[in-house]
């Protein structure tokens, strides 16, 4: 059999395309194995745990509870709905502000001016710094007594709110803090901007377009696939906000910043309800999946692909 294969290989050498395919699969194999073993395994396990009462401790005492965890979550658990609403509120604000902010900064940094390379680095740096460290920094920025944010507001005659200590302002504060990480999206949009053919702007100018017309009818359509990517990823990430809440607010004051993944964390590791937490995680998965599919469907209305859809 080995001889047969060897003979076959000798007789029929791989084509370039086949060799590229082999190389491709060898190259992605480490990542693929990691995905299957270290992500796929736990994901599958959490699906099983979601229909049990497992505490996260003793597997021998796990009891099957069917869909009870899901029923309790949806119909008896007020915290679930509070966490869901808070998370959507945050997600909407963070994605909207983050995408618009990233677009704005990318356009500014796409100008052919001295120092833009340095500015790009400066704007990108925050997105690769430690999440916990940045959260602690923002606790002090939002400090109502000695924080920089309220100081700046006071300079223009505005008495700043309590921010993280206020039920009304804690979510806007977290949204504002999320703009710290726009650097990653800014780089993607910047790359998109640099891929827009200059000839399109030249043609627009010949047709008498001003800057707004160029932006509206050239930049935005050509950027729409990139913006679509940024929005999809940002929505997924924002729905999983945890670090900021864990470090800055612990879900408070009251339940004003009690978000979904924080509830999963609390249920799994503080209340020892791993089965319940797994059910929470799967509902979040369903929500994210539904939203992503909705965005894919909606993209047909506003995303422009220069080469058409293949």
């Amino acid at each position, binding site marked *: 059999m080995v001889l047969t294969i060897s003979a076959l290989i000798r007789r029929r050498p791989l084509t370039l395309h086949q060799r590229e395919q082999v190389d491709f699969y060898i190259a992605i194999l480490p990542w693929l194995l990691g995905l299957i073993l270290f992500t796929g395994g736990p*994901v599958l396990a959490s699906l099983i745990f979601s229909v049990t009462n497992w505490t996260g401790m003793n597997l021998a005492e796990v009891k099957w509870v069917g869909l009870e965890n899901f029923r309790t979550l949806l119909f008896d658990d007020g915290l679930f709905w509070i966490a869901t609403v808070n998370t959507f509120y945050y997600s909407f604000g963070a994605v909207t502000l983050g995408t618009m902010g990233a677009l704005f900064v990318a356009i500014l940094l796409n100008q052919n001016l001295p120092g833009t390379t340095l500015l790009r680095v400066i704007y990108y740096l925050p997105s690769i710094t430690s999440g916990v460290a940045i959260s602690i920094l923002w606790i002090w920025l939002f400090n109502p007594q000695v924080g920089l944010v309220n100081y700046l507001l006071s300079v223009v005659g505005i008495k700043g709110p309590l921010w993280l200590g206020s039920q009304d302002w804690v979510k806007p504060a977290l949204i504002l803090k999320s703009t710290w990480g726009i650097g990653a999206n800014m780089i993607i949009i910047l790359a998109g901007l640099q891929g827009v053919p200059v000839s399109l702007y030249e043609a627009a100018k010949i047709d008498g377009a001003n800057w707004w017309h160029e932006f509206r009818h050239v930049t935005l359509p050509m950027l729409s696939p990139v913006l679509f990517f940024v929005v999809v990823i940002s929505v997924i990430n924002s729905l999983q906000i945890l670090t900021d809440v864990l470090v800055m607010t612990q879900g408070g004051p009251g339940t004003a910043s009690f978000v979904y993944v924080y509830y999963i964390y609390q249920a799994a590791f503080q209340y020892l309800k791993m089965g319940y937490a797994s059910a929470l995680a799967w509902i979040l998965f369903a929500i994210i999946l539904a939203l992503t599919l909705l965005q894919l469907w909606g993209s047909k209305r506003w995303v422009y692909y220069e080469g058409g859809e293949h």
Partner: protein
Amino acid sequence: MRNSPLSRRQFLRFSAGVAGLAALSACAPAAAPSAGGDANGGAAASGEAVNVSLGLTWEAAFQSHQKEFDDKFMEAHPDITLEPVYNTWSDHNNVVPTWAAADTLPDIIYVHGSRAFPWAFEGITIPLQSYIDTDTEFNVEDVWAEALNLYNFKGEQHGIPYDHGPNLLGYNKDMFDAAGIAYPDETWTMDTLRETALQLTDAAGEVPKWGWSAEMPGLSNQDGVSSLGPWGAELLNTDENTLLLDTDAALESTQYWTDLILVDKSAPTPAESQAFEQGPWIAGQVGMAVVPSWETPSLASFSTFAWDVAPWPEGPVARATGSFGSGFSMTKNTQHPDQDWAYLREYLSKEGMEFMWGSSGRGSPARKSAYDSWMNSDTVPEHVHYYLDALDTYAITGRPYQTLAAAELNDIITRSVTLLKSGEIDVASALAAIMEEGAPVLTAAYERLNS
């Protein structure tokens, strides 16, 4: 060359899908770290060299003290090698369940009083009762009974406390001296505290000063007794399946502490407290505060003012304050409990407690006989004996400590108390919210406990 290029749309969709999967993977639980446990398996035969792993929470500065004890122990027991694993105190309660899930628990672990009961129920810790009963030299009667209660599960000790102490009234002597007010003493009542707090307060000054530090109302663990007890109120019934916050006494006591913040303004609001990295008390801008025994080392290290402690003031009904502590347990994954006990019996002996926590000033030992070593250490206040008096007479361990819902109930309480201190809800609403949210959680925990 034949190929099948992706369109930009397909590429972006694919990328979004892959990145989405990667992001979703954050939902998956993290892998448990290795605890460095003994891999030999099976009970070690007598005389056979074994490794005993310890899951501890000491900060770097105190680890050398632990090493000193461990080195001496290993000299005396050459057949045992100790392998400490350190978590941060704040992470430990999350790390231990992941160890337990992966069956990689160290042989011996630190157990905070609030976790003793649920971890015993879940089988993380194992009973030590047979060792305690047969090891007459260990003398468990020397340990405060209230401290032992925390680690008792269904009549058996699942752990031995190493420290235990009550809440007392701490005061900033410099502020009292500057205001010309006599220091607190045994005659103080809650009314005296309130009047004095007002006299000490100058919140509008260039350096704001407050009379009271606003920890209260704190309704759970040791703070619950200190907050509610002087008015004769309690958080839970004995079975810990019913909240008792719908009484006049609970309302009155909670109103008292809230009024200090919102009516008298003699205590900083939560927003005002945020201006201080270590809190306004350590910063020296508060005249009086709750000072449990385990906070005395921090005060000795970081405070820049003279301070002392006094008995917890007497309330309209009683003098009552809460006590709490931490301990050590063997875990379900240990393969050589005899060696674990050999370590624990020395670590938590009178001499062990004196060396580790007493004379080092680290904290008030859980053994009565070792208390003197702490009271003679360098980090304690002048009237340190009030801690001992409280344990002997009026301090009791706060609830919840024997319900599986303790962590959840504490969160429920914290949510409402934070709003209460900020003035966003009134006392009646806060207590009602705790009752409403806490009742089903307690009931479910009680049913699970007895199922």
